[in-house]
């Protein structure tokens, strides 16, 4: 029984997957009313970017793998961003007793 498909997974398939993930993250970022969900959407978008970097690193830059180094830096920055974002959220919750994005309008004209 020969089930082997002659074509490997192409680069484009990974890029389409990353595009879907990124657009889902953008939609969630715009439409979430819970501030924690906004932070989760940002993490989704960062992961989509990382998938792109890794796909390019494996398919186009196979020997120097600069994409993997960049992905490590993105992961570092994402960790820092999550820590600071959640600390801001916590202090915001302590002052306003809500996590509703529509009510965080203190600086809005």
């Amino acid at each position: 029984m020969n089930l082997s498909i002659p074509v490997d997974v192409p680069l484009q398939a990974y890029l389409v997957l990353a595009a879907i993930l990124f657009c889902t993250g953008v939609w969630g970022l715009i439409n979430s009313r819970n501030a924690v969900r906004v932070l989760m959407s940002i993490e989704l978008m960062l992961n989509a970017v990382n998938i792109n970097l890794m796909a390019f690193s494996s398919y186009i830059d196979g020997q120097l793998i600069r994409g993997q180094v960049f992905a490590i830096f993105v992961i570092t920055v994402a960790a820092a961003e999550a820590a600071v974002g959640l600390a801001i959220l916590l202090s915001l919750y302590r002052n306003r007793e809500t996590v509703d994005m529509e009510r965080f309008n203190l600086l809005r004209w």
Partner: protein
Amino acid sequence: MTIASFTQWICFLALSAAVVVGSLGVVLLPNIVYSAFLLGGVFLSVAGLYLMLNASFVAAAQVLVYVGAVNVLILFAIMLVNKKETLAEIPGLPLRRLLSGGVCAGLFLLLLRVDVTTPWAVPGPSPAGDDATIKIGMHLFSDYLLPFELASVLLLMAMIGAIVLARRDVYTVDVITGENADQALIEKIRTPLLVETAPDRNPALESTR
């Protein structure tokens, strides 16, 4: 990775289905705790995709940092701010969702078009495979040394900033003993500073300030 194309396709399709369904669940589910756990699933599936892309070190870093740290941090944040509140109705919310959905679909179509029409320079040089970890180490200590050191400074700044932002300031001193009063008890009776409809403040607490 040197596995058969058929196996590769099966792994890719399963992982990408998990990523897409999980991310939709993160965005759409009404219960935020389910969203947080699905986010962990998405992170794990993305780590599996990294393994398929010859990046074992970054896959391990993804599991350690995202699933082990960021996701746990998000779960703790949900536990700390989890209060049942009825969200006020916003006029024109379905229209807003539809419009933003249209914008996101347009963005996706644009990305898809770029993806299909660009002549990618594939196949490039053969992937490094298991030597990737060694090469990453070489990069980090030669041509990416400055960003590497800056990343450590950034992490230190983020840590200090998070502590400063999230700590509770001690407002009150016990009048009899002169010690700091229990902050949690005070915050239970204290009216938050910026709530719009501020009810009457507790006069007993006000006098101790």
